[in-house]
């Protein structure tokens, strides 16, 4: 089959516990833009058990079509049946582009699917566009950071289809929801026959989290090792509360056991782009910067005037964070009154 016969932009609509993940809407948003550039459609692929009704919201966020693969074997994420589902959809519908979220699920599913359908996969993309590669028009150009965020590389997949990428969550923008907008729903049937590759789930242990996902926060007050102790995060909580924001942290803080991994910003944590990011006592390792430098406004408070965090901060304050933060909280509270 000729490469030109592969048509359409497909996105994997990740769901967990029959709830669509934000990444699915983000991928539709980006997919819409790519599809417009190629004059084609955006199709969301929804895989799970009892998930058909979730198709509506994918339509409202901009999907033209939703392919649903529904089977009891797909109740929980497992590599093999999910790989079978997505690879079968690709072989049947032949998309030119297949986007998957670079989540803990997508980074397992993506490579296995790409190997099964024999195409390339570019990991953790932060920028996607349609352009020319070696004089071939209409190629997907996939840009990603590598080498711990030291470099960026743009990758093409000129001779194989689909062109596959995993996309970092929190980087692409979802579209405005249009209530009542409908996608064409296609139910796709394939057989799931358990074999040696089907692993058995013995237990599922959910971590209890009382905080809002830091990727959804509009304001983040983020602490690093410069806070000195886990107790000192109390003042960050107060500042965050006064601003209506959330607390996040650097990797050093997680490694020290002061805060849970769910609050970690950076290359091995989460990518955030809030309206305001206040970095408190964070030196700004390159891996941390990679996770927050797209924030709209960055304020950094640090004792060390040579800290790399100041290289990305819009406003840098050289000073003692433990003295400045409580006074700042008071000032904000006083104008709120």
């Amino acid at each position: 089959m000729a490469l030109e016969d592969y048509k359409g932009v497909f996105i994997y609509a990740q769901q967990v516990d029959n709830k669509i993940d934000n990444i699915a809407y983000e991928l539709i948003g980006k997919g819409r833009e790519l599809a417009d550039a190629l004059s084609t459609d955006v199709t969301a692929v929804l895989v799970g058990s009892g998930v058909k009704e979730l198709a509506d919201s994918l339509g409202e966020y901009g999907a033209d079509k939703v392919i649903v693969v529904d089977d009891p074997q797909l109740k929980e994420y497992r590599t093999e049946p999910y790989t079978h589902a997505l690879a079968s959809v690709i072989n049947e519908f032949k998309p030119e582009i297949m986007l998957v979220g670079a989540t803990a699920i997508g980074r397992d599913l993506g490579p296995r699917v790409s190997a099964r359908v024999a195409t390339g996969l570019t990991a953790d993309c932060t920028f996607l566009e349609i352009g020319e590669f070696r004089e071939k028009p209409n190629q997907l150009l996939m840009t990603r950071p590598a080498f711990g965020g030291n470099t960026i590389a743009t990758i093409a997949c000129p001779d194989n289809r689909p062109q596959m990428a995993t996309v970092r969550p929190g980087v692409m923008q979802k579209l405005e929801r249009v209530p009542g907008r409908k996608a064409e729903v296609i139910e796709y049937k394939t057989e799931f026959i358990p074999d040696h590759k089907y692993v058995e789930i013995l237990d599922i242990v959910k971590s209890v989290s009382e905080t809002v996902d830091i990727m959804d926060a509009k304001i983040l007050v983020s602490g690093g090792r410069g806070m000195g102790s886990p107790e000192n995060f109390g003042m960050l909580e107060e500042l965050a509360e006064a601003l209506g924001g959330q607390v996040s942290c650097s990797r050093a803080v997680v490694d020290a056991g002061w805060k849970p991994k769910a609050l970690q910003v950076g290359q091995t944590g989460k990518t955030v782009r809030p309206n305001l990011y206040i970095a408190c006592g964070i030196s700004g390792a390159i891996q941390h910067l990679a996770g927050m430098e797209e924030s709209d406004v960055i304020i950094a408070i640090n004792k060390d005037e040579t800290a790399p965090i100041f290289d990305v901060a819009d406003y840098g304050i050289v000073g003692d964070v433990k003295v400045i933060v409580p006074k700042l909280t008071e000032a904000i509270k006083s104008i709120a009154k």
Partner: protein
Amino acid sequence: MKIVVCIKQVPDTKGGVKFKPDGTLDRGAMLSIMNPDDKAGLEAALRLKDQYGAEVTVLSMGLPKAEDVLREALAMGADKAILVTDRVLGGADTWATSTTIAGAIRNLEYDLIITGRQAIDGDTAQVGPQISEHLNIPVISYAQDIKIDGDSVIVERQFDDRYHVLKAKMPCLITALSELNTPRYMTPGGIFDAYEAEITQYGRADLVDVDDSNLGLNGSPTKIAKASDKVRKGAGEKVSLDPEASVKYIMDKLSEKHII
């Protein structure tokens, strides 16, 4: 039990990153270490060896100098080492790399293959799952705990907000997180023996069931269009004031930006 651990020699990114004119990494020009997630995978294998008895073979694909990380692995307690190296394998992307490593592993007997989750140079986390696909065995990625139960493995598999306890029949491939353990040091005796130990070399001719069209730069579906140093957003203002003035400065900026 036979365990194969795939390890990669990676540039220590702290030493700076250098490229060749074709956009691929100039590995020869940088300092090298054993990839951290792979080292955790090796430690996991050595612990299984301590606990249940096992033969641990380490395998690395790379330049001849990747022998260094194989000797390090032997000094930590691995039993055998294989270096997969050949000029035709250079410039491989994850597809061509996983095809090559699967072709090398087809020479071996194994119950378990352990790889690191991802390498610090590429950060792709693709090669482990892709090897398992080529070998048609189950994969459990992101392992934070590994136990053996008869002919099966029981693994805690990390997700964003939860972990699954999974049971898979061996042979099986597991990708390890560096959080899995703290790797042991090389022993002085181990270093001595490792220096003398023989390292098996595989070239193109030793790869089983692999087509030339899937190897090296030419066999890589993904091509680098361009690579460059990251352009960072420039620094803004930086002030050094007393605490009261610092607070006033921040308040002014927040108000200017309509945040308060």
